[in-house]
């Protein structure tokens, strides 16, 4: 984990300064995003007690229901544990977002099992697909379940408590040698979607593959992600929530805070630390410290989102 070098004065932010922070799972750090720059506020429970918030929502990601390999032979079990953790939160979240790879192989039974486990939380869930959710032959199971009211290949937006949420799809029709892709149609839609909104509206964007380039050699990025971000530059507060890389990473550029979530199924290696991004086998007693959920709090009027990564087991 590294900490921002930011001073306490939020007004004195150098907007051009790019900070890169990584919080490795298990650290349980609270990030408060203020004026676009995250500050580590301390451990979870103290921070939560200090800042009751208006809007709390949860991010879960990469549940890979159906995965049964050595890195986690029981992915549905750890998803159920994550849902149990959500149910036990002291403050009930408003809703959940799932940033994709709900299933491992897009099989109907995997979607059914995921649904059954996730619905236990009793919360509305807003999904975007991961590449693992679109590998059935006709590429229809995801859309039939989750994308009925979405545009194009599954993108949409909604509003909650004055925050504008945008779900994007960057795992469709990928091209040889390239990274994730949003495509022209989606970018045009995004431009129209935000056109009439005031700059003071906090925006939360969520998509499966990171919209920023985390590690090109492993395909961890989105070729036209920067174009999407540039369409949001008028907004004072933009938070980008992604999955796909099964570990927590943060980066802040100007008003935009990027954050990736833990998986509920299996960890993946840090960039370049393994021959490939394949599932990371860790000792059994360590697995649950590398899996988890993300808790996001928005305090009205303060334009800041507090992002808390909660491992299944701290």
């Amino acid at each position, binding site marked *: 984990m590294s900490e921002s070098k930011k001073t306490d004065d939020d007004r004195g932010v150098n907007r051009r300064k790019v900070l890169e922070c990584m919080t490795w799972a298990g650290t349980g750090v609270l990030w408060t995003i203020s004026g676009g720059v995250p500050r580590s506020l301390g451990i979870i429970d103290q921070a939560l007690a200090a800042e009751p918030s208006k809007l709390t929502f949860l991010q879960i990601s990469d549940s890979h229901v159906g995965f049964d*390999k*050595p*890195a986690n032979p029981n992915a549905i079990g750890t998803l159920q544990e994550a849902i149990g953790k959500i149910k036990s939160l002291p403050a009930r979240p408003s809703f959940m977002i799932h940033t994709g790879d709900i299933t*491992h*192989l*897009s099989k109907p039974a995997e979607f059914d099992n995921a649904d059954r486990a996730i619905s236990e939380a009793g919360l509305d869930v807003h999904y975007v697909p991961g*590449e*693992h959710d679109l*590998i059935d*032959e006709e590429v229809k199971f995801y859309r039939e379940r989750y994308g009925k009211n979405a545009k194009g290949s599954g993108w949409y937006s909604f509003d909650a408590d004055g925050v504008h949420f945008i779900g994007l799809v960057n795992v469709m029709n*990928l*091209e*040889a*040698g*390239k*990274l994730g892709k949003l495509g022209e149609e989606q970018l045009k839609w995004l431009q129209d979607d935000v056109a009439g909104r005031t700059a003071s509206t906090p925006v939360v964007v969520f998509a499966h593959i990171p919209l920023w380039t985390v590690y*090109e*050699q*492993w*395909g961890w990025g989105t070729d036209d992600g920067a174009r999407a971000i540039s369409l949001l530059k008028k907004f004072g507060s933009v938070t980008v929530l992604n999955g796909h890389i099964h570990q927590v990473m943060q980066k802040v550029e100007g008003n935009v805070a990027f954050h990736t979530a833990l998986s509920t199924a299996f960890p993946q290696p840090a960039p370049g630390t393994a*021959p*490939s*991004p*394949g*599932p990371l086998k860790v000792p059994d007693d360590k697995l649950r410290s590398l899996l988890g959920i993300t808790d996001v709090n928005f305090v009205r009027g303060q334009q800041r989102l507090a992002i808390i990564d909660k491992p299944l087991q701290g």
Partner: protein
Amino acid sequence: MQSLRPERRSRPLGAVLLVAAFVAATLFLPGGARAEDAAVQIDDFAFSPPSLTVKAGTTVTWRNKDDIPHTVASSTRMFKSKALDTDDSYSFTFNEPGSYGYFCSLHPHMTGKIVVEPANHAAQ
């Protein structure tokens, strides 16, 4: 060939069957027209070998050794496998000489190439 069949059925699947199939393929080709088969392994999010040169008529089989599914998709949409889970395989027969680029449609940074030479080409 006839005598092989009952024997193959009575044995467990796996290497024995593969060997039997290979023997059958090489010994009983009609007129010997088919070239040898070739294999590409998918391991550690990479196609190995990344570039493979074969004779026209060769059937190339890709096998996924990773714990994550991959696909084999032609860059020109000439062929595309289903998602291959661990140990699944996909085969395609290349009849026309040429260079065929392909990639994994799930992890498009994974790319490979099959170079097909004329069947009567003298060089190795």
